[in-house]
């Protein structure tokens, strides 16, 4: 009898544990989509920019960096934007510039925060220093994402 009660307790604990695992698995944000800029090549330097979105959060993240050369601090700036389904701009960050050198493949990131819920589009812009001036390049747009209520 005592053993049966113990087993029931164990069963309850196991079910509670598995329910917790299941809940946390559902809460993991899904990487929902990426849109890219066209590749820019200036004086032999190539850069790229992306906008990344996550299906469960309103935090579009713009990233950009060099692909062929190392960029010293201040050479790369990125900003992120979010738009409502009707095309209205709802969020934009200021430009953020790298404060460390970026080796080829390294990316500088800037995250926007959208409050509330609903569908949105996102895009990003990279600004990089080349030949004594900054050049701007935009990304394409992510398909609209939904922030659950």
């Amino acid at each position, binding site marked *: 009898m005592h*053993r*049966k009660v113990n*087993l029931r307790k164990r*069963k309850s604990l*196991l*079910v509670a544990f*598995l329910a917790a695992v*299941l809940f946390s*698995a*559902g809460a*993991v944000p*899904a*990487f*929902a*989509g990426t849109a890219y*800029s066209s590749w820019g090549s200036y004086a032999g330097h190539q850069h790229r920019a992306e906008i990344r979105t996550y*299906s469960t959060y309103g935090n579009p993240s713009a990233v950009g*960096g060099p692909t062929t050369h190392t960029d010293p601090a*201040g*050479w790369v700036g*990125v*900003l992120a934007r979010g*738009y409502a*389904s*009707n*095309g*209205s*701009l*709802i*969020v*934009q*960050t*200021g*430009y*953020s*510039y*790298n*404060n*460390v050198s*970026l080796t080829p*493949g390294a*990316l*500088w*990131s*800037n995250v*926007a*925060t959208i409050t509330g819920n609903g569908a949105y589009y996102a895009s990003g*812009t990279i*600004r990089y*220093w080349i030949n004594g001036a*900054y050049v*701007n*390049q*935009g*990304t*394409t*747009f992510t*398909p*609209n*994402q939904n922030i659950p209520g």
Partner: protein
Amino acid sequence: MKTLTKKLGFIVAGVAVVVLGVGAGSAAGAAINPTSTAPIPVVEYKTNDSGETYGSAVGVVDPENEPDLIQAVATNGREGYVRKTDLVEPAPASPEEASQLRATLGRAIPVYSSDGKSVVGEFVIQPGQGSVAKG
């Protein structure tokens, strides 16, 4: 006793299948964009009496091709337009200057009606929060 052990086994197997399913769904999200439902609107600009173009910037990849007045929502919830030149700060003079701008604070800019003159609210530009990301 054996029956109870069997039941436990079934519960564990069942929950494992559900957990794996949720995980696979999250991973698949990157490929199939399950939340993507609406097409990106077609870009059409109108021109106001001052000769400024206005409309949505959705779908415009080259920043140079954005309208003069970009459709936006003010903090008071009203729809209007922000001036492109207000929205994006001028480029710094040098990378050294850019490095100093990393921690800029957010700032507010006016939201206009389509005439580009009547102010209907304000739009707050968020501060940049830069960091190194994985490629």
